[in-house]
Structure formats: structure tokens, C-alpha cells
């Protein structure tokens, strides 16, 4: 029962944070190189650009929700299990979303690394 509770929290955390990651990535690509903007126009301009991007705000909402799931999951399980398990499952889920929604070039190298991370996660649960 306890582990079902824990894995439900981790599942919700994974879905919310990969959706958030994809939205943030799309939003940042629309804004452009933050380093260049900061050097030319200062940090306040960077923050201004970022908070006016609707996609960023939507992604942020997803991440805030996933943060509450993380706090809950951390109170139920070990940090060395919860943090890696959720973050690397997020990695797989985001790779799939990045391929189909962001049309990123997820080549053999990136899929192989996704598989390595997946096996790594299975070992973490042992």
C-alpha cells in the first residue's frame, strides 16, 4: 500500500515535469540565447522576456505541481530512490515528447543513452 502511494506520487511527478520541460524548452527557443540578452541588456530584461512568455508560465505551473508531488514523495521514501527514479523516468518521458512535439533530432546516441538511464533506474529500485 505504501509503495503504491509512493509510485502514484512519482508517476504524477514524472508526467507533470516532462510536460513542463517540453513547454519550457519551446518557450526558451522562442526567446533566444539568454546569455546574449543578459550581456547586452541586463538581467532584468531577461526576466522580463521570460515572464511575458505564456508557454513559460504554463510550463511553470506544471513544474510547481510536480514540485508538490516531489515533496510528498520525499516524505514517503528515501531521497536516493525518489530523486533519481522520478528524474530519470522524466528523462525518458521527455525524450519521447521532445522527439514528437519539439521535433528534436533524437539520434541513436540519444536513444542509447535513454536506454542506459532506464536500466539504471531499474537497478535503483532493487
Amino acid at each position, binding site marked *: 500500500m505504501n509503495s503504491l502511494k509512493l509510485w502514484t506520487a512519482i508517476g504524477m511527478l514524472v508526467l507533470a515535469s516532462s510536460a513542463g*520541460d*517540453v513547454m*519550457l*524548452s519551446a518557450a*526558451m*527557443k*522562442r*526567446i*533566444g*540565447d*539568454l*546569455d546574449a540578452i543578459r550581456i547586452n541588456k541586463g538581467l532584468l530584461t531577461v526576466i522580463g522576456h*521570460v515572464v511575458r512568455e505564456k508557454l513559460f508560465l504554463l510550463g511553470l505551473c506544471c513544474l510547481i505541481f510536480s514540485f*508538490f508531488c*516531489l*515533496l*510528498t514523495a*520525499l*516524505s*514517503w521514501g*528515501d*531521497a*536516493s*530512490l*525518489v*530523486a*533519481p527514479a522520478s*528524474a*530519470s523516468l*522524466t*528523462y525518458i518521458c*521527455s*525524450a519521447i515528447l*521532445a*522527439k514528437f512535439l*519539439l*521535433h*528534436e*533530432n*533524437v*539520434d541513436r*546516441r*540519444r536513444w*542509447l*543513452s*535513454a*536506454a*542506459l*538511464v532506464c*536500466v*539504471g*533506474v*531499474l*537497478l*535503483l529500485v*532493487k
Partner: protein
Amino acid sequence: MKFKKIFIYLAIACCNGAGDVLLKRGMQNLGEIHLSRWTHIFNAFIDPWIILGILFLAGFFYSYLTALSWADLTYVLPATAFGYVITAFLSRVFLHETVSPWRWAGVLLITCGVGLVARGPSLTERPTKDTALGKDSAISRAKEQHELA
């Protein structure tokens, strides 16, 4: 450029790992959260460990956004995977959790996966689409300004 990539990778990994461990330390003070008394979770924001953890995660978020602005999502994400190594190490030393050999093996495999991606190209090449995207956002920004006016 090379130095910039390494620096942002390290900043993302360290802030992420340290942030998670600090949050766990704070939640130990707070005790278990029951669904019937879920508002208890808001007490988390007055715990110094949690506040420090949130500060670290804020640093992580800034470096993460900066990296996303000039690299693919599938390139930046593995940088957070470096954080697992730091999380496992810190939970062993700082939280005194037992980390089994299996978990260490998992951490090792994840690290291999990270190294593999980090050595590849950082951004999908699509010159025509990039310029088209730039145009789109310029148009939408002009529209927004027009609506504001």
C-alpha cells in the same frame, strides 16, 4: 563555448543534487504527510533546510533555462542526471541512508548514458526552420504590442 557547456552542466548537476538532499533533510523534521491533513505540507515553507533547498533549486532553474535557450531539451536533460550521483553520495554521507551496490550500479549506468549524450551535438540543425521560427515570434510580438497599444 566548450567551457560554457561544462560550467552550465556542473551548475545544473550540483544545484539539483544538493537541493534534493536539503529538501529531504527538511521533510525529516516535518514528518510524514497524511492525505487527510494535506495542508500540513505548507509548514514546509518555514523550515530552514527546505528554504535552503529551494534556493539551490532556484539556482538550478536559472542555469537550466539558460542552457535550454541555446541547446536541445534532450541534450540539457542528462545534465540533471549528473545530479543523481551527487544525490546518492550526499544521501549516504549527509542523511546516513544506506545506498546498496545495486543502486550504485544504477548510478554508474545513468552516468554512462549522460556521458554519451554530452559528447554529441548540442542543437538540432535546421537553419530554414530556425529563421522561420524567429520570424513567427517577431510577428507574434509585434501583434502583442499592437494589441497593447
